[in-house]
């Protein structure tokens, strides 16, 4: 201060960037994640799943070498009794990993009594929350990428077929979708960690939401469609309207969005994710794959939906965290 009077600057919103210290938080949190035994267990679990399902799929696929253009992608989607396909496993492994990374993000700092010391440093709460989210997302992406590379590697060795450019591109989109899907559960875990004081309660609440969407939402969507668009006369329009409503409601579940989207990316022969009328198939060559850009056009709304849900949940967590009293 150059003058000698005590002057308080007029109120003009907050000074400084809300992201000051963001990368310090990201670095610390990622180091924590990557060295924690919790993460080690989840990595081992994922690794086991990946090698088991891919080994089984590779055995099945050996018979079709040379007949399928997208052999490598089939590694992810081929199931062999009694194991489901790798993508089926991912549908619940990813939420599990994401929730495990986030459920004690905020309440953990309170319980360790580090929160007040942390917020007494020159950073905003924004940086703390986003830093924790990004660290979780990067960790998730790191784990998934490693496993993805591993699967592709096993596939090339065991099938002896090099991947085509389109296969790699589709595979990468599959990876991106999986990370986006994880983002939702990561934000959900963080919201729970702001809401609940006890990490165990937060974990349980997040898992309850996940179970609800995984197990019950499909049934609820079906019942709601039956009730709201009943088939009275057996007309085609009625049946179609009911199916469309069920599909629409079903897509409110991230699980549905994710499984639809990865099927469209990994199985180029899938032409539509909704009901298809015979008239729409006129001129189509059955069994011929869609080009990559058409498959992407098909799943674009899904990717947007997954990202939007992540952002909405994060915003909710952000508002709750900003309002939280530091002493409690």
């Amino acid at each position, binding site marked *: *201060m150059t003058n000698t009077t005590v002057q308080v*600057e007029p109120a*003009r919103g907050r*000074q400084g960037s809300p992201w000051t210290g963001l990368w310090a938080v990201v670095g610390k949190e990622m180091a924590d994640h990557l060295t924690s035994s919790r993460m080690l267990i989840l990595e081992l679990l994922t690794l086991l799943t990946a090698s088991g399902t891919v080994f089984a799929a590779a055995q099945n696929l050996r018979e079709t070498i040379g007949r399928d253009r997208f052999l490598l992608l089939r590694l992810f989607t081929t199931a062999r009794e009694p194991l489901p396909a790798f993508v089926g496993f991912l549908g619940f492994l990813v939420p599990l990993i994401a929730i495990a990374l986030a459920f004690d993000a905020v309440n953990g700092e309170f319980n*360790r009594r580090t929160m007040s010391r942390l917020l*007494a440093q*020159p950073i905003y709460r924004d940086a703390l929350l986003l830093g924790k989210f990004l660290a979780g997302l990067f960790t998730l992406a790191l784990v998934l990428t490693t496993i993805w590379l591993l699967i592709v590697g096993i596939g090339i060795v065991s099938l002896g077929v090099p991947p085509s450019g389109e296969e790699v591109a589709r595979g990468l989109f599959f990876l991106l979708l999986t990370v986006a899907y994880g983002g939702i559960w990561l934000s959900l875990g963080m919201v729970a960690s702001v809401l609940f004081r006890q990490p165990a309660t937060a974990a349980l609440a997040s898992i309850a939401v996940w179970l609800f969407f995984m197990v019950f939402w499909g049934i609820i969507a079906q019942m709601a469609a039956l009730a709201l668009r009943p088939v009275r006369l057996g007309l085609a329009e009625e049946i179609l309207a009911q199916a469309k409503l069920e599909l629409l409601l079903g897509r409110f579940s991230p699980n549905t969005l994710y499984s639809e989207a990865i099927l469209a990316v990994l199985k180029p022969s899938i032409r539509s994710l909704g009901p298809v009328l015979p008239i729409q198939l006129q001129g189509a060559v059955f069994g011929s794959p869609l080009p990559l850009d058409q498959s992407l056009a098909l799943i674009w709304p899904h990717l947007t939906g997954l990202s939007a849900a992540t952002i909405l949940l994060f915003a909710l967590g952000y508002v709750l965290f900003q309002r939280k009293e530091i002493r409690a």
Partner: protein
Amino acid sequence: MRANDVVLVSQGLTKAYDGFVAVDQLDVTVRRGEVFGLLGPNGAGKTTTILMLLGLTEPTSGSVCVLGLDPARQPLSVKAQVGYLPERLGFYEGLTAYENLIYTAKLNGLNRDGAEHRIDRALREMGLDGAAHQRVRTFSRGMRQRLGLADVLLKEPRLVIMDEPTQGLDPHAAREFLDVIRRLRSEGITILLASHHLHQVQAVCDRVGLFHRGRMVLEGTVEALARQVLGGAYRIRIRADGPTASPAQEPWETSRNGGNALIDSLRKLDGVVDVRRVAPQIYELEAKADLRPEAARAVVGAGGELLSLDIEAPGLDEIYTHYFDQEEVAHDEHHRAS
């Protein structure tokens, strides 16, 4: 008083949580280089006040100015220069002391080299250099408290705010910690201290403010408060044997009557407020001035034998108790009247 010397000033600072007023119209000024004690029982509003000073909670009304800045609007600049040692101090238990401090240094935007230099110095200053690479899990309460202070000193603060710094420390560790506070003061760091351990902190505070139910009811140096609350009281403790008894009296009457003679002659001194016998041979004299020489003469003059003579400096505990006893009485009377 130059404005530059004011480190912290609040005017009409108020914080209300749905109907409950935690801090009520607080006016406080802390000058550079002093140790200011914010004293009062638990729940008096000390921690809430501190959180407002740091911009961690928005005041309901009133203004705060810390180092010339508004903590609610410029929290980053305030928090870069103000160190905060919270009451419930926690660390990442699985990390070493050094790693914990590295995180703080990075959050303060220090680069690796600058951070290492400062961390080494802060740990050395707190006597923790031997334990730098031990996990915090193994630390004692006193070590944690010193690590907390190292964490605060890392940013080379101009003002350090401590919330109950001696809470839970054993007497030895508490005394050590108070020595550290004195050392910081001698280095020119301004310190704001909140505590309910009045007798512990009165030794290090230049000025104190007594908190009660969200209001600061008294403020000043300990001596000034003593004058204000205890009526300028000096308390003199006299050990004396009464005058030799006359033969007609029984021995058990001797001491009482002899004592009475002593009390009478002490009462006659100028400036004496009250004289009490608190135990056989021990008398307490409350006076408006230091009457030790006069009291000694009076005891001898009454034929007594003076064994010892002490003056007691009034403590904060006493001031506090005395003040709030009066307050309670006034409060009760007010209630009865209405």
